[in-house]
């Protein structure tokens, strides 16, 4: 975890509401994108994003950095909230009676950060079977069992294929993590000398 993220988590735990604002600025768009792709209705997605941040505010004490990155924790809260919504009777009833516009609505084209368009293109250029897997698991909230059934492959194959898909992405991104980690270490050393 970077020093910046660590500090943000500390402030959230101390009840600093401005830290929640900063968290929203850093991750709100990415979380909204995930939720919107699952529920496919902006009004529901908006309500869910609000619920997610309130939940984060209340439960930040249960986040354990040794178990993973802060974003992973956040995106799992968001995805679970969205999946719970999609599976609720209320949502299903609504989808039956809903107009076609929510369904044809393509949220992916809204408010995209131009710096990230390159990454998006990389995702689009993924092997079709890998791209679809990422889409279903990460953005549609499918379980691996559901994916296995949907595309008619064994569960074990789903797991290894997800592995391959992400490895492909990592290769395309050029493993930026290790570079950043090294940089932050150098930065910390310089900071300590000042």
């Amino acid at each position: 975890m970077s020093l910046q993220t660590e500090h943000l988590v500390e402030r959230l735990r101390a009840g600093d509401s401005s830290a929640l604002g900063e968290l929203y600025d850093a991750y709100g768009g990415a979380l909204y994108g995930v939720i919107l792709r699952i529920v496919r209705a902006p009004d529901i997605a908006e309500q869910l994003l609000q619920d997610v941040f309130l939940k984060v505010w209340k439960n930040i004490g249960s986040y354990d950095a040794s178990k993973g990155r802060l974003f992973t924790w956040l995106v799992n809260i968001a995805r679970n909230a969205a999946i719970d919504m999609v599976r609720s009777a209320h949502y299903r009833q609504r989808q039956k009676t809903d107009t076609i516009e929510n369904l044809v609505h393509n949220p992916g084209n809204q408010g995209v950060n131009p710096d990230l368009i390159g990454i998006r293109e990389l995702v689009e250029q993924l092997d079709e079977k890998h791209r679809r897997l990422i889409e279903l698991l990460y953005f549609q909230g499918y379980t691996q069992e559901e994916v296995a059934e949907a595309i008619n492959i064994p569960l074990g194959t789903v797991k290894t294929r997800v592995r391959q898909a992400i490895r492909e992405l990592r290769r395309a991104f050029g493993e930026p993590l290790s570079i950043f980690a090294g940089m932050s270490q150098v930065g910390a050393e310089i900071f300590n000398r000042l």
Partner: protein
Amino acid sequence: MDLKSLIESGALETYVLGLCSPEETVQMEQLLQQYPELRAELEAVEHALEQVARAYAVTPPPGLRERILERIAPRGEGGPQATAARKQQVFRWQRALPWAAVAVLGVALVGQVWEKRRLQVQHQDLSQQVTACEERLRQHERLQEVLALLRDRNTRALLLSDAAGKEATKTTAVVWYNPIRAEVILDIASLPAPPPGRYLQLWAIADGRPVSLGMVQEQEGSSFQKLPFLPNAQAFAVSVEDKPQGNPTPTQVLLIGKI
């Protein structure tokens, strides 16, 4: 467990996607504590998926950020700042309470003082009226006594006339005398005012000697002055004296009348 085949199995990706069972999750967490290589691999997977999510980020509707912050700040579910603000509000409220009590008491006190003053004035008015009524009643009772005496057939009117025997002087006084009731009343309405620095004294003549019956006094509301009754009196007289309290013997006798 072979770390490499664990990584190749895709278990880490399943873990990052939040798709592990609770048992698998606990197991993976323990392994992550134990093996730094596994931990590094986890971070790489997480980072890749984070990049994907960021690439597909959508700007949330405007105002949502403010609505979220509004919902956490004023209600402050666990926010220490909100708790502090609430404490401060309570504190302010508690501080205002004694002043409010003082204000209420102050208003009540002013009202009380004002009411008391009003009642005092009213009381004064009423007691003056009562005093006046009592005075009128006493005058009335005195006149009733005089009237009772005048109606009594044993009462005689004695005319006191000028001691020098001059018929021309109109100066007279009347004494009502009743030996049965043992009452004597002088009507001073017709008496002249004494000269300045002089006073009128009353006398009875008993056994040839003058006995003082006191000074002529201003009577409230009537002109009747009650005199002491002397059984052996033969005459009444009025003299002019130089002292307010009178003299043991008459100086200048003005009027006299025999019984």
